[in-house]
C-alpha cells in the first residue's frame, strides 16, 4: 500500500540512484585507468624511460622510420640494414597496428606542438593501452553480467601480472595494443549479439581489423567466434542477432584483414581462417532453414528438410573435398609453424629448433600460472558456474573463451596473455556475484530485524537490477573491492554455489549474517593478497628492461650497462655501412641502437642464414673468418658473461648455435661439442 501511494518520489529516488551510480562508475573507471597506467611505471621509476628487451627495439625503429618518412614510405620500406645481404621487406612483413598507433599518437601530439620524442611515445603506449584494455574489459563484462562484474573485472585486469609482464612502460610490443584490441573486439561481438545492431557489427569488423593489424594472435578471434556461433546453433540458440553478429564480421573482417600486407591472401588461403568460412556457410544454411520453417507449414517443411539435407550433403562434400585438396597441396597443411605447435605442442621441438629455442614458446610450468594470474586461478571456476546461472549467449561466449585460452596457455607460455583477460572476466563475475549475495544477505538480515517489508522488497529488487544494468550499491561495493580487492577462494566457492541458488530461488535463500560478514572479510583478504602480489610482480619481476642489468651487493647497487656500451661504441666508432655479425638475439638491438647492418635478427625468417651464422660461431677461427668474410662482416659482437657471472651470454646459447647450424650444415655435429668422457674432467 505504501508503495502504491508514493510512486512518484520512488521513481525520482531510483533515477537519482542510477545517476549517482553512473557517475560513481565513471569515476571508478577513471581511477582504474590511472591504476592500470601507473602500476606499469615501475620500470620507468626503478630504471629509466627506455625501450625494453628485443622486439620492442625493432618496433621502435620502425616507428622512428614511420614518423620520419611517412606512411607511404613505410609500406614500401625495404630494409637493407638487416639480414645482409638479403634485406627484409619491412612494410610487407610487419604487423603495422602498434607502429601506426604510436606513430599516430606522436603525430597528433606534435601537431599540437607537444614535442614528445618518438621514444617517449613508444615507451608509454603500452601503459596507455592497458588502461584502454581495462575499460574494454569493463564493457565486455558489463554486457555479460552487469556493471558490477564489469568494474570488478576491470580492476582485476588493470593489474593482472600476466598482462603487466607484456605491457610495462617500455615494453613496446604488439601485445601491448593487441590485448586491448582483442577484448574490445569481443566486447563489440557480444554487444552486437545482445542488441542485433548492424552499427555495432560494423564497429566489430573494424575492431577486428585493428586486431589483425596488431598481432598474429587475431587467429584466436577468428576461430573463437565461429566456435561460439557453432555452439549457439548446436544448442538451439540461433537468432537473427547471432546472424548479424557473425555474418558481417566474416565478410567485412576478411576483406579488411586482406588489406593488411602481412596477412594479404592468407586471410582466405590458410587453414587458420577456414573455420570461420565453414561456420559462415552453416549459419546461412541455418538461417535459411529458419526462414523456410517460418513460411512453410510443418508438413511442407519436413519435405523441404529432406530435400535440402540431401542437396546440402552433396554441396558440403564438394566443398570439403576442395578444401582438403587445397590444404593437402601445402606441405604444412596450410598451417604456420607456430600455429601447428599450438595444435601439437611437441611439433616445434621436433621440427623447428628455432621456435623451440625461444623460451616464450615453451609450455608454462604450474608456478607460472600462480605467478601470472595468482588468485584468479581459484576464482575462475566460480565465475564459470556463475555464467551458467542463467546461461545466455554472452555468458556462453566467455565460458568458451576461458576454456580455449586455458588450453592455449598450456601450450605456449606467451599465450598466458590471452588467458589473463578471460580469467579476469570470470573472476570479476565470480566476485561480483559473491558480493551480491553476501551484501544482499547482510542487508536482508539487518533490514529484516529492524525495518518493514518495504526494505526487504528493496533488497530483493537490487540483485535483479544488478543482473541487467548498473546499480548504485553495486558501485559502492566495487569501491570497497577496488581499495582492497576480493575474497578467499576455498571459502567463497561453497559460498558461491548458494549464491547461484539464492538467485535462482529469488531471494528465498539468504545466508546468515555472521557467515556473510566472515565471507566478505575473507574475500577482501583474498583481494588484498592479489593486490600485494600484483604490485610485487610489477615492481620486482616484470620491470627490468633487460638491456640494463642491476645487481644488489653489499657495497650498493651495481649497474651493468655493457650492452648499450657496446652498441654506443659501434654506433659512434665504426663506419655507417659496416656489417656486424652476432647471434640473432642481438640483431634488433644492433640495428636500432647502433644503426649498423646485421646479418641475422630476431625476425627469424631465414633459417639458413641463421644457420650460417651459427656455423661460423661454432667453427674454428679460420673457417669462421672465411664465412664472415664472405658476408662482408667487419665486426663480430659476442657476449661473454664469465667475468661478472652474467648467465645468459653467448656461451649459454652456444649449444643452440651448434644445433641450428647443424640443422642446415651437417658437418656441425652437436656431439663434437660435448664432453664425452666425464672422467677426464674429474681427474
Amino acid at each position, binding site marked *: 500500500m505504501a508503495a502504491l501511494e508514493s510512486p512518484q518520489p520512488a521513481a525520482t529516488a531510483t533515477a537519482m540512484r542510477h545517476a549517482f551510480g553512473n557517475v560513481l562508475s565513471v569515476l571508478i573507471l577513471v581511477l582504474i585507468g590511472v591504476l592500470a597506467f601507473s602500476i606499469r611505471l615501475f620500470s620507468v621509476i626503478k630504471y*629509466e*624511460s*627506455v625501450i625494453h628487451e628485443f622486439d620492442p627495439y625493432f618496433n621502435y625503429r620502425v616507428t622512428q622510420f614511420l614518423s620520419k618518412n611517412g606512411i607511404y614510405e613505410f609500406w614500401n620500406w625495404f630494409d637493407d640494414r638487416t639480414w645482409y645481404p638479403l634485406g627484409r621487406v619491412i612494410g610487407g612483413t610487419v604487423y603495422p597496428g602498434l607502429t601506426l598507433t604510436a606513430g599516430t599518437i606522436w603525430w597528433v601530439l606534435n601537431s*599540437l*606542438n*607537444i*614535442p614528445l620524442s618518438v621514444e617517449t611515445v613508444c615507451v608509454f603506449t603500452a601503459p596507455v593501452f592497458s588502461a584502454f584494455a581495462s575499460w574494454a574489459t569493463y564493457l565486455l563484462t558489463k554486457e555479460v553480467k552487469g556493471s558490477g562484474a564489469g568494474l570488478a573485472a576491470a580492476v582485476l585486469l588493470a593489474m593482472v601480472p600476466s598482462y603487466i609482464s607484456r605491457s610495462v612502460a617500455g615494453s613496446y610490443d604488439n601485445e601491448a595494443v593487441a590485448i586491448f584490441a582483442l577484448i574490445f573486439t569481443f566486447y563489440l561481438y557480444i554487444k552486437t549479439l545482445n542488441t542485433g545492431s548492424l552499427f555495432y557489427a560494423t564497429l566489430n569488423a573494424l575492431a577486428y581489423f585493428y586486431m589483425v593489424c596488431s598481432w598474429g594472435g587475431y587467429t584466436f578471434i577468428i576461430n573463437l567466434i565461429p566456435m561460439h556461433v557453432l555452439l549457439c546453433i548446436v544448442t538451439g540458440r540461433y537468432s537473427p542477432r547471432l546472424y548479424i553478429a557473425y555474418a558481417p564480421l566474416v565478410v567485412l573482417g576478411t576483406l579488411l584483414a586482406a588489406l593488411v600486407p602481412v596477412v594479404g591472401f592468407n586471410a582466405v588461403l590458410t587453414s587458420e581462417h577456414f573455420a570461420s568460412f565453414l561456420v559462415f556457410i552453416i549459419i546461412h544454411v541455418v538461417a535459411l532453414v529458419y526462414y523456410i520453417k517460418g513460411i512453410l507449414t510443418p508438413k511442407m517443411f519436413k519435405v523441404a528438410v529432406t530435400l535440402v539435407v540431401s542437396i546440402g550433403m552433396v554441396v558440403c562434400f564438394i566443398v570439403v573435398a576442395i578444401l582438403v585438396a587445397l590444404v593437402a597441396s601445402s606441405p604444412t597443411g596450410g598451417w604456420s609453424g607456430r600455429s601447428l605447435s599450438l595444435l601439437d605442442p611437441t611439433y616445434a621441438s621436433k621440427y623447428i629448433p628455432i621456435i623451440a629455442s625461444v623460451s616464450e614458446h615453451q609450455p608454462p610450468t604450474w608456478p607460472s600460472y600462480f605467478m601470472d594470474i595468482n588468485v584468479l586461478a581459484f576464482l575462475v571456476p566460480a565465475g564459470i558456474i556463475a555464467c551458467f546461472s542463467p546461461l545466455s549467449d554472452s555468458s556462453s561466449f566467455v565460458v568458451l573463451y576461458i576454456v580455449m585460452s586455458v588450453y592455449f596457455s598450456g601450450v605456449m607460455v606467451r599465450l598466458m596473455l590471452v588467458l589473463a583477460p578471460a580469467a579476469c572476466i570470470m573472476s570479476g563475475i565470480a566476485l561480483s556475484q559473491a558480493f551480491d549475495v553476501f551484501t544482499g544477505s547482510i542487508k536482508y538480515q539487518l533490514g529484516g530485524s529492524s525495518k518493514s517489508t518495504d526494505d526487504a522488497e528493496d533488497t530483493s529488487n537490487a540483485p535483479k537490477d544488478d543482473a541487467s544494468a548498473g546499480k548504485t550499491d553495486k558501485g559502492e561495493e566495487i569501491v570497497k573491492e577496488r581499495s582492497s580487492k576480493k575474497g578467499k577462494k576455498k571459502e567463497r566457492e561453497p559460498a558461491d554455489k548458494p549464491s547461484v541458488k539464492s538467485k535462482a530461488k529469488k531471494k528465498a535463500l539468504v545466508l546468515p549474517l555472521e557467515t556473510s560478514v566472515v565471507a566478505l572479510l575473507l574475500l577482501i583478504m583474498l583481494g588484498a593478497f592479489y593486490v600485494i602480489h600484483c604490485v610485487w610482480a610489477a615492481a620486482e619481476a616484470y620491470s627490468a628492461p633487460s*638491456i*640494463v642489468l642491476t645487481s644488489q651487493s653489499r657495497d650498493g647497487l651495481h*649497474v651493468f*650497462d655493457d650492452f*648499450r*656500451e657496446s*652498441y*654506443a*661504441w659501434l*654506433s*659512434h*666508432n665504426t663506419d655507417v655501412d659496416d656489417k656486424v655479425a652476432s647471434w640473432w638475439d642481438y640483431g634488433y638491438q644492433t640495428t636500432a*641502437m647502433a644503426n649498423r647492418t646485421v646479418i641475422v635478427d630476431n625476425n627469424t625468417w631465414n633459417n639458413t642464414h641463421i644457420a650460417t651464422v651459427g656455423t661460423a660461431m661454432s667453427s674454428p677461427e679460420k673457417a669462421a673468418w672465411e664465412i664472415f668474410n664472405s658476408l662482408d662482416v667487419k665486426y663480430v659482437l659476442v657476449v661473454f658473461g664469465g667475468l661478472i657471472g652474467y648467465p645468459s651470454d653467448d656461451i649459454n646459447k652456444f649449444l643452440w648455435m651448434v644445433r641450428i647450424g647443424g640443422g642446415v650444415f651437417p658437418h656441425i655435429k652437436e656431439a663434437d661439442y660435448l664432453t664425452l668422457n666425464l672422467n677426464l674432467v674429474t681427474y
Partner: protein
Amino acid sequence: MAARIGIFAVVVAVFLSIPAFSSAQDLQIVNAERRIDLSSHIVKAFLTLKVENIGKNPAAEMLLAFSPTQIKNLAMVQALAITGKKKKKTYLPLDVKPTEQPDAPNDTGYYRVTFISPLGPGETVSLEVLYILTHSLEPFPVEITQSESQLVYYHDSAVILSPYHVKQQTTFVKTPSTRVESFTSIEPANRAGKEIKYGPYENRASYSYAPVIIHFENNSPFAVVEELVREIEISHWGSLQITEHYRLTHGGARHKDVFSRVDYQSKRSVSGASSFNALLAVLPPRVNSVYYRDDIGNISTSHLRTGFRKSELEFEPRYPLFGGWRATFIIGYRVPLEDYLFEASDGRRYLNFTFGCPLVETIVNKLTIKVVLPEGSKDPSAVLPFTVNQELQVKYSYLDIVGRTVVVLQKDNVVPTHNVPFQVYYTFKPIYMLAEPFMLVSAFFFVFVASLAYVHIDLNIARK
C-alpha cells in the same frame, strides 16, 4: 709532415727577406718574455712585452702578429696594460681586435691592440698578452696502441713573430712531463726538467722567425667537442632549462690494434695512458633535475656535487675514449630563474648567463647557443664581449601557437677562457604566461559543453 716543414721553410725565408715595414718602425719592443704552456692540449702563451714608441708621433695601437697556422687555431687573444710599480700593479684590459694588413707577408695574421691612451714619443708601456691556441699539438706517431703513451709535436718559432724590432726576448716552454724526445735547439737554448728555455736573443729584426719543433709526451685528455649545442629555455614560471648536446671526440693520436678491456681495467697505470674516461662539467650553483643520457638512454656513470659557488658534475662516457673515438651525449639541468633573469632599468628583461662550454679543459670546435625566449617576447638582442654569429629562429614547444623566438649564437673554436657572462635582452608582457593555461581551460570547457549538448540533442529521424 714534410709538406708542413716545407711551408715553414718558405715562410721563414720570406719573412727574413722582406724589409721591415716603415709604419711599424714607430714602435719597438724593448723586452719580451714569452711563456708557452703545453701541459694540456690547449696551448696557452703568455707574453710580457715592454713597448717603446721610438717614432715622432703618438701611437694609439700596436699589432700582434701570428703565423698563418697559428692564426687558424687561435681561439682567443687578450691583452692587459700594466700600470703602477711593483707592488701596486694594476691591470687594465685592452681592446683587442683581429685586423687585416694590406701588405702582410705570407698571410700573417694580425691582432690590433689599442692602448688606453696613445703612447707618446719616447714613452713605454708594459703589456701582458695571453693567447690561446687549439689543435696545435700534432700527435706523432699518428697511431698508438693501448699500451703506448702519446707523443706530440709542437711547432713554433724560437723568436717572437712581431712586426716590430725586438731588442731582447726569451721564450720558456713548459712541457707536461720531463719526457721530451727532442727539441730544436737554437742557441742559446737549454732544457731543465719540464722547462725548455730559448734565448735570450738580442736585437731581432721585425718578422724574424726561427722555427722549432718540440717532440714530447702529453697524456692529458685531448677532449675535443666537435659540436656543442646548448639550448637555454626561459620559462617565466620560474626556471631555466638548459639542454646541452655534445659530440665529443678524442683529438689525440689515433688508437690502433685491439682494445683490451681486461688490460684497461687491471693495468690502469700503463694501459691507455692517453685515453680518458672521466670528464668534469662545472655547472651553476643551485642546479637541479640534472640528467645525463644519450640517444639510447640514461648513462649511469655520473656524480653530482652541488655547492654554493658552483656544482660539479663528474661523469664518464659509456666507454673510455681512445684516440679518434667519438661519443655523443646530452646533459640537461634546470636552474632557478631568479639567479639569471633580471629586469633592466629600461623595463626590458635580460638573461645573464655564461657563454662557453661547461666541460673543463675542453676545446669546442663549434658552439651554438640557443636562447629560447618565452612565447610573446619581442625585440631580442644579445650582448657579448666578443664577436659571434647571431641569427633568430622560431621554435614551437608545448602548445605554442605563434612560436618562441630563439636567439642563436654561434662561435667556432671555443676554449674555457670564453666562459664569460653574456646577456640577451628582450621585452615580455607577463600576461602571455597565462595564454597556455587559458587555452587548456577553454579546451576542456568546450569539451564539456559539447558533451552536454550531445546528451541533450536527439538526432533520431523517427520518434521512438
